[in-house]
């Protein structure tokens, strides 16, 4: 396809188009059409895990707190106010009396108690159950060690007061409440319809919008929910979430105004779009790190000197500028800078002396000039983008260290299997924050964490993460995280490569949409010009 992008405002033959295809294809009045990536697996807040699902669910349901679209600060949701105890472990939420389900039934504290128990119930088999582990007894209940659900730290003094007791003071608990796993679900509906309760004909929800239509692999339509407590503030009448898997198709639908926002931009089109002056290209940092796992139990990678040499030999600036090419920032720490306001002080060096240092480390490990070292295998899931990055790193290791690397790719599910069974040397990975706090990145590397695919274990590190969970003072807490980052950059069970960037197209007609690091855009606040 041609590399040139037609100007978005180029209204070539628009008139003819309008005559031929009247408004159905256009955002007439308050209808918003969004590209939403892959087909959602489900719309059950407790069982889904993906971003396409979240984009819809956050508008169908509402948790105790909402999120300010600009500042990302917690705003009142179903709870109109809350109090936090001095030790930071008890939260008392006052629920608003006018909060209703879409079938007009009132929402009470017992709805939340039911829902959080459902999330933690082993029978629900929720992959996000760990979001409920902050609640006292949550982990034991989920793992079957605690049978009595009444022992969980969730109580109601009256229908409109919910008291939550946590295991540890969790400073980001309020921001966690925006996560779909902690949204309420309607008990009678879930119990009546089982797995089929999320179908348009069955679902009862409590958000600003309600589900009207679900055509698989095509679109999900939601309409303004008149029973929502704040419905007078909701301006959009209807939102269509289109399941468009291919970025190229999404872009074309945007160019012909069938979509007002895309979920991404084809990589090879980013450069031409950057030259577009109409401002429809949106690009901002995102809380996610692209990195390589290092299997620390495999020789020669069990030697931290070699791991460090490998990490230092990579020129991240070049990598993002010439290979990734989406305006990403080089990752010099594992936690992206700015996660919950945390600015990691320790950084992987980027000056030219790093290559000399890497060579020294390699010689120190007993392999001067890479001689005698077996080839390093880099695994990635099949994709042109991952391949290019791996090839660039292969080249850098060879040029800078004399180390040979071989590349191999696997189809997604096979790749996950290999990574999980740790049957690799170096493997491509990415991690997107579940919540806006450094803990979402750092606790993944604790000993025995299911997502720690490096097999790395460090007692000092573990105790730091544990200590941070109990620390009330935010400044001290971040100092602890800083120490944990220091250990990571010394030990390098992960080699950070770049910080993710969100890149998408947004029509200037869409108002009330703010760019933010969590990429959260509650449609409650959005309207069409």
């Amino acid at each position, binding site marked *: 396809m041609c590399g040139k992008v037609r100007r978005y405002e180029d209204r070539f033959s628009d008139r003819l188009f309008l005559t031929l295809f009247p408004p159905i294809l256009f955002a007439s009045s308050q209808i918003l059409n969004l590209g939403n990536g892959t087909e959602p697996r489900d719309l059950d807040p407790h069982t889904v895990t993906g971003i396409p699902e979240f984009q819809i669910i956050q508008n169908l349901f509402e948790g105790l707190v909402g999120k300010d679209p600009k500042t990302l600060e917690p705003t009142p949701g179903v709870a109109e106010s809350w109090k936090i105890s001095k030790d930071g472990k008890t939260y008392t939420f006052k629920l608003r009396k006018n909060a209703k389900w879409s079938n007009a039934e009132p929402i009470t504290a017992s709805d939340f108690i039911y829902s959080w128990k459902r999330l933690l119930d082993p029978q629900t088999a929720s992959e996000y159950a760990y979001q409920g582990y902050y609640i006292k007894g949550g982990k034991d209940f989920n793992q079957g060690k605690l049978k009595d659900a009444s022992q969980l730290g969730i109580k109601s003094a009256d229908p409109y007061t919910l008291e939550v007791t946590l295991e540890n003071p969790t400073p980001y608990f309020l921001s966690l409440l925006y996560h779909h796993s902690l949204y309420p679900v309607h008990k009678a509906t879930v119990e009546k319809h089982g797995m089929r309760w999320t179908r348009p004909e069955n679902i009862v929800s409590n958000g600003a919008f309600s589900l009207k239509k679900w055509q698989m692999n095509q679109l999900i339509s939601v309409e303004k929910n008149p029973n929502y407590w704040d419905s007078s503030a909701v301006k959009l009448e209807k939102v269509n979430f289109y399941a468009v*898997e291919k970025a190229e198709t999404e872009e074309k639908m945007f160019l012909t105004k069938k979509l007002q926002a895309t979920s991404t931009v084809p990589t090879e089109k980013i450069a031409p779009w950057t030259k577009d002056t109409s401002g429809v290209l949106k690009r901002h940092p995102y809380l996610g790190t692209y990195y390589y796992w290092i299997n620390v139990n495999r020789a020669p990678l069990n030697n931290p000197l070699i791991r460090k040499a490998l990490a230092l030999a990579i020129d991240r600036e070049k990598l993002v500028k010439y290979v990734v090419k989406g305006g990403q920032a080089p990752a010099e720490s594992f936690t992206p800078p700015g996660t919950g306001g945390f600015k990691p002080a320790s950084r992987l060096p980027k000056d030219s002396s790093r290559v000399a240092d890497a060579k020294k480390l390699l010689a120190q490990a007993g392999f001067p000039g890479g001689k005698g070292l077996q080839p390093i295998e880099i695994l990635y899931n099949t994709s042109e983008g991952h391949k290019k990055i791996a090839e660039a790193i292969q080249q850098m290791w060879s040029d800078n260290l004399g180390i040979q690397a071989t590349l191999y790719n696997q189809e997604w599910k096979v790749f996950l299997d290999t990574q999980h069974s740790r049957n690799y040397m170096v493997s491509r990975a990415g991690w997107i924050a579940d919540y806006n706090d450094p803990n979402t990145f750092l606790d993944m590397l604790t000993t025995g964490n299911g997502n720690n695919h490096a097999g790395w274990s460090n007692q000092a590190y573990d105790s730091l993460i544990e200590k941070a969970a109990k620390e009330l003072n935010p400044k001290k807490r971040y100092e602890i995280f800083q120490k944990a980052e220091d250990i990571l950059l010394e030990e390098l069970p992960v080699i950070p490569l770049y910080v993710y960037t969100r890149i998408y197209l947004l029509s200037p007609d869409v108002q009330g949409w703010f760019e933010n690091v969590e990429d959260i855009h509650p449609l409650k606040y959005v309207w069409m010009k």
Partner: protein
Amino acid sequence: MGINYVLKRLAIMVPIFFLVVTLVFFMIRFAPGGPFSSEKTVSAAILKNLEAKYHMDEPLLSQYVRYWKDLFRGDLGPSFKHANRTVNEIIAEALPISLELGLLALTWAVLIGVSAGGLAALKPNTVYDYVPMAFSILGICLPTFVVGPVLVLVFGLWLQWLPVAGWETWQDRVLPSLTLGFAYAAYISRLTRGGLIEIRGQEFIRTARAKGLSESEIVIKHSLRGGLLPVVSYLGPALAGIITGALVTETIFNIPGLGRFFIESAVNRDYTVVMGTSLLYFTLIFICNFLVDIIYAILDPRVKYE
């Protein structure tokens, strides 16, 4: 054509069907990874509960037996990926879309193919022959994944006459069905031309002419019936090819047809959907070929089935 022949054909289908079920069932199970492997590691306890939900905790052989039992009841099981749908529901939703796309494509193919081929055959070795035949070579050579994006570029992005993707309005149907039908139209035009030219040289056409029939009567009554035989015999494989081959077109135009479920289910290890779509494709291909054999016998008196 005897009833025996029909029965024989159906009888052959039974062991093949058994083989297909067995092969697909075990092949997909032995592929690494599973429906529940995900980027975020699922704890062993949760995995156990998920597996129990779908009877995956039972031995493979009893799952196989269970599948047959369900199949006899016409139940293709629940989907792993689309949590609130059964495979029957997915097929009920996606198959009509694929059929519609396929039939529209076939209509284009026949309409364009027969008229272009007929034109070429009526005036062979003139510009009316060269131009359509040159196009048909192009149509045969160009794959769908080139034709589709080019049509989208011209009619969708440049002229903006037609939508670039989707399956909601009638306008959405035009480009995908043209894309899918294009190659078949090209092939049909060549078959039509060849068939008609061959027939025109036959004795009975000369007789018809000698009887003083008008040229149009000769073409419609006598030439077409015999001349289109190759086209008819091609329609079966063409329809099967169009339905199964639609997945590229479905991907280009983001159409929620069966082809996309077929591909995605394999990638997602959505075992039940893989089984359901494979069996459906198998049955469709079988039926198409079967129907063609029957139509062929009706059209051509020389063909006899024992």
